[in-house]
């Protein structure tokens, strides 16, 4: 119990004092997760739309595969990316292991299946409503995907935020690929793991509380954007 009280006090202290190290790891966390999810969304949303609207051989297998990949353990993604980026691996010459870019790649791979699988469902539901109308107006499937992307942007935003939630919260892949290097690749979650291993549970929990606050802030920002757009731009 003491640890929990101490954690809240520490968290408040960290945030109110704008602790430099804390700001740094928050920056790295946001940078890695926003980039990873942003790039993943660029790939996964059209992919989800294509899987929903197009009929091709192996489509059902691909859907099952994407759904299964949603549960991919981050550690496995981390391991695969590590082996790829290692100096002895096929992409070793790029020198991306233990860098922020490497972590972005790992998180991108981690959330792409999640966004693709969830957005496929959104696209399919929209398609039930829009299919006849869009086909009647002469939209080809490739065009219909983009139209639905716009029509369903708020549902799809929620999907992207789910991807962001998974990315910002995971420790497995960023720890292996980033290496938890102080002032360089240390993120909120790897810092939490480190403090836990030092037995400083209060500080670890304080960082966890801060992580939740940051995640809430990002979600609130997205929600606010949606609200403003809905009201003034529609």
């Amino acid at each position, binding site marked *: 119990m003491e640890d929990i009280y101490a954690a809240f006090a520490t968290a408040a202290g960290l945030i109110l004092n704008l602790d430099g190290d804390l700001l740094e790891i928050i920056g790295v966390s946001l940078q890695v997760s926003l980039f990873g999810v942003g790039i993943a969304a660029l790939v996964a949303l059209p992919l989800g739309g294509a899987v929903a609207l197009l009929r091709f051989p192996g489509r059902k297998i691909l859907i099952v595969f994407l759904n299964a990949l949603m549960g991919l353990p981050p550690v496995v993604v981390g391991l695969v990316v590590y082996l790829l980026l*290692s100096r002895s691996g096929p992409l070793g010459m790029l020198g991306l292991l*233990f860098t922020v870019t490497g972590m972005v790649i790992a998180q991108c791979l981690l959330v792409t299946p999640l966004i693709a699988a969830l957005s496929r469902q959104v696209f399919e539901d929209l398609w039930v409503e829009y299919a006849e109308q869009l086909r009647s107006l002469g939209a080809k499937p490739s065009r219909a995907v983009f139209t639905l992307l716009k029509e369903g942007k708020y549902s799809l935003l929620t999907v992207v935020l789910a991807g962001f939630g998974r990315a910002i919260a995971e420790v497995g892949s960023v720890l292996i690929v980033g290496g938890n290097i102080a002032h*360089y690749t240390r993120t909120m979650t790897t810092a939490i793991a*480190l403090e836990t291993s030092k037995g400083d549970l209060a500080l670890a929990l304080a960082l966890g509380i801060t992580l939740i606050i940051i995640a809430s802030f990002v979600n609130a920002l997205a929600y606010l954007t949606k609200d403003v757009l809905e009201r003034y731009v529609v």
Partner: protein
Amino acid sequence: MSLINLLRKIKITASMQVLLLLLLLGPGTAATAEEFITLSSTTSTQNSGLFDYLLPKFKEKTGIDVHVIAVGTGQALKLAEKGDADVILVHDKDAELKFVKKGYGMERREVMYNDFVIVGPKNDPAGVRGLKDAVQSFGKIAAAQSNFVSRADDSGTHRQELRLWEEARVDVKASSGKWYKEVGAGMGATLNTAAGINAYTMSDRATWVTFRNKADLELLDEGDPKLFNQYAVILVNPSLHKNVKTEAARQFSDWLVSPETQTLIGSFQVEGQVLFHPNAGQAVTAK
């Protein structure tokens, strides 16, 4: 073309892009511009705060940033084998010599030592307090079948622990899952587990002293020369991996064994205790 189209389609992503670009100019990029070497080392050196104390001084002197990947000795050696580190600082002499012999590393130099300690429940059910004999302590723990948490992660500490069990003629594999708990984790996580179930374990002194979640655990046995723990720095052989920054790594290695740095190491204290004893260029204290 289609990417640009897509961006235009979703205004939200567009505004996110701006945010992303802003973040690009954030923290990570500054560090990449500087010269750095990657050091793979053990959790004990990292968790004790030794690197936070030493590395800024090295950077001040040479301008070189040191990126520390803190893992177990086994994994640290593996990273170096694959060419993912430039220099290593670890503590498992047998494995180190093998590493150098196989041609993965070169210029092994001893830097400092600390020691392992046996910690356990305050009430000490196996009665090992103050024995100053690690082998006897382990024998008593096995005889009493008291819970013992092993790191079981192929780290230097784990290998040292296994050697002691062997000397005590205890077959821990047979008791795994009973009183002998293999957690496969770093020192800190292992101590957390031991604190949680009030069990014995063996830790390096640095991690133990700086560990904050001791609960009912106490330091029970120490001082056996068999518990001495030698750290050495080894350069990764650049003939296997072209990317290895040997020059900067050698600068770091030279600096570690220099008299000034040795003095710095000796004066590093946590809670009034000296955690690492410099011994570069001296005969090995233990063995």
